[in-house]
Structures are given as C-alpha cells and as structure tokens.
C-alpha cells in the first residue's frame, strides 16, 4: 500500500535541453517522417526556430533526469508492477531545439480501486522554458498492480 503521506509531495525539477539529434532519434522511434520533425530547414520554413519537440516528447524530462525513478523508489512502487494509466498535456507554447525545458511535478492524489488490488498515483507537472514561459501542463496517472 502506497503511503498517502506523499500526496502534496513536490518532486525535484527535471531539466531537459532540447537537442536536435535526440529529436531525430525520437522521430525515428515513432515512425515520424514529416520533414518538420527531422529537417532543420523544413522546420524553419514551417515557422519554427528549429526542429520542434513533438507533442509527447516532454515526458522524457523526468525520465532522463532520474526524477521518475526516484519517485518510484520513494513510493516503493517496483518497476515490475508499474503501468501507465492516463497521460494528459495542455499546451501553451512549443519547445524547439535550443530551448531548455524544466519540468516540475507534484503528487496531487493517491487512491486505490478493487480493494487495493490497483493503486493510482496522480502527478501534475508544469513545463517551462529557459525564459520561464509556461510550455505545457502535464497530468500523469500511474498505476501500481498489487
């Protein structure tokens, strides 16, 4: 059973520099061939400063920084029992190569269903750029199979 004391917990910020080769790798991994996501000139022609980060890419920030693993350790959720229940993004502005994104999350709810067979952890995050501008709000529901 996940300790409810973690509701309200603020996680350390995770900083992710948006890099061109990483975005090209991500595009390859998801089968994205639209030149806007892989070719600098096509991105500029489409009105972006450089390659844009695709809609779900910012989820990488806390994974790269080890913040997600730290949370799972704190909450004592083994990787083997972890599932992703829901994911949401609300967008305010885009991030492109050259930007540095910081994701800051808080645990906003923990609850159980099916007599505790499933436990849910709700994490709300804000992603900002190096100018402090809000890029996106993220909402993640993690599921622990007990």
């Amino acid at each position, binding site marked *: 059973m996940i300790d409810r004391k973690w509701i309200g917990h603020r996680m350390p910020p995770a900083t992710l520099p948006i890099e061109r080769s990483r975005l090209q790798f991500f595009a*390859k991994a998801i089968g994205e061939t639209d030149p806007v996501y892989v070719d600098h000139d096509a991105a500029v022609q489409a009105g972006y400063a450089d390659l844009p980060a695709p809609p779900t890419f910012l*989820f990488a920030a806390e994974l790269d920084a080890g913040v997600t693993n730290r949370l799972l350790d704190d909450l004592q959720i083994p990787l083997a029992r*972890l599932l992703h229940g829901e*994911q*949401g*993004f609300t*967008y305010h502005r885009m991030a492109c190569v050259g930007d540095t994104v910081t994701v800051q999350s808080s645990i906003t709810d923990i609850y159980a269903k099916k007599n505790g067979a499933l436990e849910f952890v709700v994490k709300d995050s804000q992603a900002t750029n190096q100018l402090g501008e809000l890029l996106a709000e993220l909402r993640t529901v993690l599921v622990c199979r007990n």
Partner: protein
Amino acid sequence: MISPDYDSLQVGDSLPAIQLPPVNRTTLALFGGASGDHNPVHLDIDFARRSGMPDVFAQGMLGMAWLGRVLTAWVPQSRLRRFDARFQGITHLGNAMHCSGRVLAKLEQAGERCVRIELSSVNQFGQTKIAGEALVALP
C-alpha cells in the same frame, strides 16, 4: 500542409488514419532509448517474465506518440491545445495499431474556434488499447 478550416469541418468527420506495422522488439528498444523510458519490462524478456508478463510489451507513451502523429499530420502542432490519453490495454508484440481520429464537437474556447477530437488506437483484432481526446484550435 493544407490545414482544415473550422467552417468546413463537420462533427463526425474523420482525420486521416495511420496504420502502424506490427510492434516488434526493435520498435520497443528504439523507443526506450529515444523517450528515456528504460523500464526493462519493455526491453528484457527475462525481466518481463519475472514481472508476471508473458513477454515485453509496448510503452504506453509509444502508442500516445503514434496518436500524436495523427494530429500533427492533420494540423500544425502549434494548433494543439490539449491531448489526453487513457491507456486501456497492453499493446503486445505483433499488434498492428490503427490510429484514428474523428471530430466530436465544434466549440469556442478562450476566444478560439476549436474542435474536440476523439482518438483511438485499435489493434488488428479490434481491441482498443488507447482512447484519447484532443482539442485543436482552427482558423
């Protein structure tokens, strides 16, 4: 890209769908590296079996990224206001996902004309793995 416009869209209209090839281990390894999700349950069959799973399975965010492609192939990403996914089932090796979208509603939000899009990722056996929704601002 020829972007759809608000006036000519109707509730029920479909977005161009995407058919993915069957998920294989290479797909999962590439996405693990690119996304930063190194959870071995998606990469290492020994770990997956010790976790009580028959084999490795797809990362949820891989399926969401495919749905994102449906949206960004339809409109420039800068028009995307919200994007939500509920992971309803595990996407297994060999699943060939069909990712589609449909206009649910036309509405005005925060002074912008928007459409709400229903998204789904369904395998070749008709099983829905992800149900999603998006809000897109249109000219």
